[in-house]
């Protein structure tokens, strides 16, 4: 039952394969199958109709880029439209902050609160949790038990019936921690007194973020509910839970659109460790029941614009850690650095041996370390001093020496690339060749 949709989409795509002229009937069939796949994944029906209309129009009207087959052309449009629908994944910063969790009854708020606490703890931050659920029997026991497992302070008051008072006291009690997460009782948009309560909690705690926790199985109800929460407290991130089941999470996608926010995390299991950052491409693949969509699109894009593969970033004057992160990803795809450099007609320019020798495992370590950096640090590595190095190392489970080594590598790359900038033409040719090799 599960895979029939994915395979009928694949069949529809097959009909477009090898064609050089866009075939109206085939596109229409594809769009119909796409509609069914998205509706079955619980994406809001009206959204699906809008989306499929624009996919159809674009597929029929836009000229496929030179060298790109019709199938890849349509596929790319489908992918682009879906990506734009779900927006960028909501950022998670590692600064001092208060996060308010909200959501329907049983959506997974308490479990997710503990999971998020664990996430920030791993990043090396001091974390505390407040139990503002005064309604559900056993709520405080549940959260206390989970927090004890990871050694995180949990503030709650057993006999207090006013959640707002608990939050006020909890914020005072936890003033020394860097990240405070507030778990709230389940509620839905029609429960006016509970909506009023969470508005009051938001007013008192002035949270940095208000995250809506949504069960992956939630159906067409998702848009309305999300709107209710958004109007009340301004949702700026969505967490989809229970993705370890078979639900596709289309409801959560509707919630993202409704709140104009992004997806922060995915919950995929009952234990505290079962939390992932959101990855749009794997989410789309799951929505459509097709495993290889991103890969297909990437291959298609490599054919049309190999010179776009990060050359611009390389050639830009300012080379931040963020650029380096992107590059590590790109280079990882293209193969070892030494091989890349070996093909460059560099006109006698020397590449430092250490730079060429960076292995892919090392690159992976570097990426982990950079994941523990704040936005400011990624943009301007100069701000990273001794204490920041300590914090970054703690968060990434690395040694301070490794962090320093990464910073040194960055400086080295910066130097090397400065020297390369004169060779734009050759570099582009090189990239084109990569496009063809792959």
């Amino acid at each position, binding site marked *: *039952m*599960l895979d029939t949709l994915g395979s009928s989409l694949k069949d529809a795509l097959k009909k477009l394969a090898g064609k050089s002229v866009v075939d109206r009937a085939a596109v229409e069939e594809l769009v119909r199958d796409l509609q*069914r796949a998205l*509706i*079955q*994944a*619980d994406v809001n*029906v*009206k959204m699906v109709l809008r989306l499929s209309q624009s996919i159809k129009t674009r597929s029929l009207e836009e000229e496929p880029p030179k060298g790109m087959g019709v199938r890849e052309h349509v596929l790319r449009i489908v992918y682009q439209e879906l990506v734009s629908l779900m927006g960028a994944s909501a950022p998670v910063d590692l600064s001092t902050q208060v996060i308010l969790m909200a959501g*329907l*009854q*049983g*959506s*997974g708020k308490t479990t997710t609160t503990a999971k998020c606490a664990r996430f920030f703890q791993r990043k090396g931050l001091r974390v505390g949790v407040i139990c503002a659920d005064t*309604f*559900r*029997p*056993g*709520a*405080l*026991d*549940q*959260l*206390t*038990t*989970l927090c004890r497992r990871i050694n995180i302070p949990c503030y709650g008051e057993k006999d207090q019936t006013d959640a707002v008072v608990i939050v006020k006291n909890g914020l005072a009690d936890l003033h020394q921690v860097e990240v405070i997460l507030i778990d709230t009782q389940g509620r*839905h*948009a*029609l429960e006016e007194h509970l909506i009023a309560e969470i508005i009051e909690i938001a007013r008192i705690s002035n949270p940095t973020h208000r995250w809506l926790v949504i*069960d*992956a*199985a*939630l*159906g*067409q*109800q998702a848009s*309305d*509910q999300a709107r209710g929460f958004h109007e009340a407290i301004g949702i700026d991130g969505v967490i989809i839970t*229970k993705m*370890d*089941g*078979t*639900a*596709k999470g*289309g*409801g959560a996608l509707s919630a993202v659109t409704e709140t104009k926010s992004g997806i922060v995390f995915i919950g995929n299991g*009952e234990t505290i460790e079962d939390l992932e950052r959101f990855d749009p491409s794997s989410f789309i693949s799951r929505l459509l029941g097709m495993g290889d969509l991103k890969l297909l699109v990437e291959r298609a894009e490599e054919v049309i614009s190999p010179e776009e593969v990060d050359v611009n970033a390389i050639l830009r004057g300012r080379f931040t850690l963020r650029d380096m992160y992107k590059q590590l990803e790109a280079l990882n795809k293209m193969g070892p650095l030494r091989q890349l450099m070996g093909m460059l007609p560099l006109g006698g320019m020397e590449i430092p041996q250490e730079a060429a020798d960076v292995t892919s495992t090392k690159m992976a370590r570097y990426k982990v370390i950079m994941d523990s950096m704040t936005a400011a640090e990624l943009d301007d590595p100069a701000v990273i001093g001794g204490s920041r190095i300590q914090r970054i190392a703690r968060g990434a489970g690395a040694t301070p020496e490794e962090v320093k080594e990464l910073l040194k590598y960055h400086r080295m790359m910066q130097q090397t690339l400065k020297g390369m900038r004169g060779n734009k033409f050759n570099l582009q040719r090189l990239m084109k060749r990569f496009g063809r090799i792959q």
Partner: protein
Amino acid sequence: MFDSFKQKLKNVQEKLGTSIQTAFTSPPPAEASLPPQKAEKRSESPRFVDKVKTLVRDRELILTAKDIDDPLTELELVLLENDVALPTTDAIISAMRKDLLGKHRSIGSSIENLVEDTLRSALLGVLGSGLDVVSFIRSREKPVKILFTGVNGTGKTTSIAKVAHYLKKQGYSVVIASGDTYRAGALEQLATHAQRVGIKVIQHQQGGDPSAVIFDAIQYATAHTTDVVLADTAGRFHNRANLMSQLEKIRRVMKPDLVIYVDEAVAGNDAVIRADEFHRLVGTDAVMLTKADMDMKGGAAISITHTIGKPIVFLGTGQGYEDLRPFSPTALVKELLGEAVP
């Protein structure tokens, strides 16, 4: 409840009515333009044909695909927007198409009825007949053992407290087995509920064997001539083989008279997949839908019963112990078709 679903169904009904009216007043198309479905139609839906026969009067009405395609497409959207799962929607639409297409002898004044009857029979065909838990309990040897199953967070524990409260009001004695030994705070949650509704709970410690707890509760019931044993279980996903086989073991040890599968009325298409798997792996006798107070769309009720062919017994309509409604398919369909004020 159901208000928007109801309104939209009504709109579609009217449109279908108009289309049929138009077809009725325009001259009958040539025989050749009749869709091929015509021949196979009669054998497959005798019920509808019977109904139409009773309405026969003078003129002939021929409906073609063209007449009903638009309104049926609209109906399809209405169903989908109200969380009726895609396969179920397909089934309803094709049943209606079959019922309406081809050659009917009919009369002008019966068009409203024609549409409504078709829709009603399609919905009732999907919803099946209900089950009254109280008469079920009355008819069985005591203690009557009821097992609650379902995925995480759907409302099993709360529902058990509500059902216990409901049965107590009907004069039955009840004991609850605290079979969720996994989830943090589960023991405290159920103990509090039970204490509030004045029901005995049997519990072991966190991490214990759920079968053993349930077994103890049955022993307790036998020793104290308690009428009903309600067994809670930890929520689990149908794609976790080890957890499902644990549940299957629980069922073997307990030998329940009734397995009630609990899901949320607000669940989307996954509702049919998991209902199907639970039914296949551990068996389901009846279904309870919770959170119907969240402006439920009603679709999950239709799709789950359509998929596993088991009756819905209760709706959960809030977090209070009184928020429980025995479910009747005819009442739902009546309400959806705007025939009764709830």
